[in-house]
């Protein structure tokens, strides 16, 4: 008799649990059926070391974006606090890696000076380093095989990226350089190299600047709060 009661009680509990689980699954499924996106992208900024990095992580892990019919594109961005930490870390790394205060390697800084010197010499000018090299070779009775007449004009050898201080050569680099030159902007600046941290931000003044890896998005005209963050 006692055994029968125990069996009946356990069966009842099992049935209740099963029903509760089923109702939970059905309610979640019905919400997902009811709310469905159009399949477009939602670009979500989040702070990598912050609490608000959890929701995009969970959404991706459980594919909630697919479930609700949109594509989540998490974009790591820094808050002002994280920015200070990053800046401090970057300063430390610069000290140990030979970068200057602008985040530029010394050879790139020399390139900037080279570019300014070439610009001062005009369209047909040669940089001081190459002029010195050329004069030195002539004085030694050697042919300057590296400086053919057509190459001494403002072209591949006049550009700072072709300066000998950079220590780069080869067809691949030349092709990339030509591509960058082909898309030079009206103000004379050139787009950043892909994947690089630094570029010649203002060649006219010979300054080097830090450029972000991400593209600049236009500032929206107005923003509206749609929901609290999990940690707000």
């Amino acid at each position: 008799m006692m055994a029968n009661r125990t069996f009946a009680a356990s069966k009842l509990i099992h049935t209740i649990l099963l029903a509760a689980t089923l109702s939970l699954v059905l309610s979640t499924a019905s919400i997902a059926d009811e709310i469905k996106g159009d399949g477009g992208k939602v670009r979500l900024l989040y702070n990598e070391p912050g609490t608000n990095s959890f929701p995009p992580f969970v959404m991706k892990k459980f594919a909630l974006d697919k479930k609700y019919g949109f594509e989540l594109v998490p974009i790591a961005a820094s808050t002002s606090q994280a920015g200070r930490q990053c800046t401090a870390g970057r300063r430390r790394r610069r000290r140990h890696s030979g970068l200057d205060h602008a985040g530029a390697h010394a050879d790139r800084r020399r390139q900037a000076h080279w570019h300014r010197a070439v610009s001062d010499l005009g369209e047909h000018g040669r940089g001081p380093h190459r002029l010195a090299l050329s004069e030195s070779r002539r004085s030694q009775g050697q042919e300057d095989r590296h400086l053919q007449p057509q190459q001494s004009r403002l072209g591949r050898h006049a550009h700072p990226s072709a300066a000998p201080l950079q220590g780069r050569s080869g067809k691949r680099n030349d092709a990339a350089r030509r591509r960058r030159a082909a898309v030079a902007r009206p103000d004379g600046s050139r787009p950043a190299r892909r994947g690089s941290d630094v570029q010649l931000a203002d060649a006219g003044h010979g300054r080097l600047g830090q450029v972000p890896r991400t593209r600049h998005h236009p500032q929206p005209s107005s923003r509206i709060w749609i929901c609290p963050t999990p940690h707000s």
Partner: protein
Amino acid sequence: MYSADSTFAAANPERMKAFLAALRESIEIMRKDDAVWVERGNIMKIQGQSLVLFRDEARDDMMMKFEPQTEADVRKVFSVLLETGGSQLIGVDALPKDFMTLAYQ
């Protein structure tokens, strides 16, 4: 707070609603599932007792949606801050007329 470009939100209401639904479900998961905290904590280099403290505090603070009185509460807090610190410290003189919505929840 999560904010969206008002033009984008008005043009894509279904996507906004879908995002917020996914957000609510992700919060439900974070409230129940300890494993996601461990997994994400490893990435963030938060482990052990620190992770437990962090998780419990964050779970208590989690809000899933705005309540009808939330905007009034925010405006009240802002008025106290403005009175105490002044507009120069806060950076603005007043909150915009429409700055939060319950439309997509």
